[in-house]
């Protein structure tokens, strides 16, 4: 049945968007930078893993390598770009334009190195499918769903219960007080960027495995993720994750009645209406 199939596809791609949304949300809540270059790190992860598997590395190892690579670049962006701008008291607009520049650099370096054409992984098993009742899923989708759920619950556990996580939340809620109490917000910000960038590489790799990759597709994924973050209420990881899934399910279900491009326009239209009515989001908490 088409409905159930679309529902399942939507749920799984929603989890991928959800991981993008929660990692973006973590950065945004802690550093207050609207980090659009996050989309570039998503893409970077996918291409690192593709390159590694083409060189004969197992997918699991390639994924770890992609996470490490994205985390390193993310940390570098924080240390060399955002932290410098913050020291020079740059306005949010300046930060944003710099982040946009970083996004353009990442995406186009990838496009130059790998050409702007569509790339897909050559693993033989990624397209093999199996059926659960009326729903047919590929192995790649199963791996994607499990990995994204693990990433979500890990981040929840990490920020809620661990010592490091509490430090991050302290910096997020009051950077000045955190500075005074010697939590060293600058170091915490770099750690946050590294964690978020490592996490965003997971859907970057696995969505690439499931479908295919292009250097510029990350922008649209990030746009959906930021919509989910805002609608879910900034600062609420669970809200961002759930709204991501709901949005993706709606988008996928709408494919039954309209073409993909219109579905994006419809999502966005809904968002504008939503933001005008309820700007604080659905699950707001600090």
């Amino acid at each position, binding site marked *: 049945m088409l409905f159930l199939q679309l529902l399942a596809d939507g749920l799984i791609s929603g989890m991928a968007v959800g991981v993008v949304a929660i990692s973006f949300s973590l950065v945004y809540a802690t550093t207050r930078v609207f980090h659009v270059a996050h989309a570039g790190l998503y893409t970077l992860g996918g291409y690192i893993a593709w390159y590694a598997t083409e060189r004969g590395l197992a997918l699991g190892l390639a994924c770890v390598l992609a996470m490490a690579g994205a985390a390193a670049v993310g940390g570098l962006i924080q240390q060399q770009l955002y932290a410098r701008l913050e020291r020079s008291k740059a306005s949010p607009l300046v930060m944003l334009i710099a982040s946009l520049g970083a996004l353009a650099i990442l995406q186009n370096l990838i496009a130059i190195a790998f050409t702007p054409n569509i790339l897909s992984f050559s693993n033989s098993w990624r397209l093999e499918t199996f059926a659960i009742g009326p729903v047919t899923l590929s192995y790649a989708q199963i791996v994607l769903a499990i990995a994204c759920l693990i990433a979500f619950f890990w981040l929840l556990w990490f920020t809620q219960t661990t010592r490091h996580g509490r430090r991050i939340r302290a910096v997020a809620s009051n950077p000045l007080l955190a500075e005074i109490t010697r939590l060293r917000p600058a170091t915490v910000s770099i750690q946050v960027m590294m964690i978020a960038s490592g996490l965003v590489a997971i859907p970057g790799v696995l969505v690439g495995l499931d479908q295919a990759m292009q250097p510029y597709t990350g922008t649209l994924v990030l746009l959906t993720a930021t919509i989910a973050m805002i609608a879910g209420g900034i600062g609420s990881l669970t809200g961002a994750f759930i709204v991501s899934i709901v949005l993706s399910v709606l988008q996928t279900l709408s494919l039954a009645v309209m073409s993909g491009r219109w579905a994006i326009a419809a999502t966005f239209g809904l968002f504008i209406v939503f933001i*005008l009515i309820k700007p604080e989001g659905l699950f707001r908490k600090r």
Partner: protein
Amino acid sequence: MNFWLSYIIVAEIFSIAALSTNLLVGVIGIFSVSQAAIMGVGAYTVALLTLGHVLPFAAALVLAALICSVLNILLALPSLRVAGDYFVVTSFGSQLVATALFINWSSLTGGASGLTAIPSAEVFGFPLDESSQFLLLSTILLAATSMSYWLLMRSPFGRTIDAIRQDEVSVVAAGKDVLRAKLSVSAVSGAYAGVAGGLYAAYFSFIDPTAFDINVSILILTMLVVGGARTLLGSIMGPFLLWALPQLLNQIDIPSTAVGPLRQLIFGILLVAFMLFRPQGIAGRRLG
């Protein structure tokens, strides 16, 4: 000869677009990566009206400016309701939706292959199909938009908007209508973008969705940032400097698939470098 004329004409068209972005990003401090979308609406409006012989070029250009003006107000509205960062999302979104419309509404826009054989410009029956004649038109229009920008910024109204950017609360407290001021600036900005788009369509006589996609929006933003926001000189200097870059890249022998990404890469590097080392641009004043 023709090469230089073409370079100047395109740079002038982008100067008008950069002035449009300048009003939003520099003057009222609304981030925008959707000015190419507005410009595209202007271009498609002029193209369709002149292709269908509905209106002559001059009238079509005026109508395009009006439509874009209204559209820009509509797109700026969310930014007045929600805090700054949220508007980034609506701006990105507007651009992507516009591109989707240009591609998918193929009965009107010709889809991905675009519109061809758009009639060249003529004003009151006087044809402007030579580059040298078109140069006159684009120069006059750039002069007119620059003049209006300069007059706007010097007027008491201009001082009000400058004050809004610096301290919005005080301006509200002084009893000024901040909302109306911002909407007026958006309207003027939209009209500029519409004019730029209409000129683009008539000059190239061919438009397609890639001419007005997110990369073009980023190009216009880069032009503004490099030239210097909040100044007239910067909005003109940026396009002239940056439009030279694609021409230079054409001289280098690189694979054709790498030309576009290389150009975008350089724009990205310029954005980051200017934000780090000279956020006010070459000619500009402090941003934000």
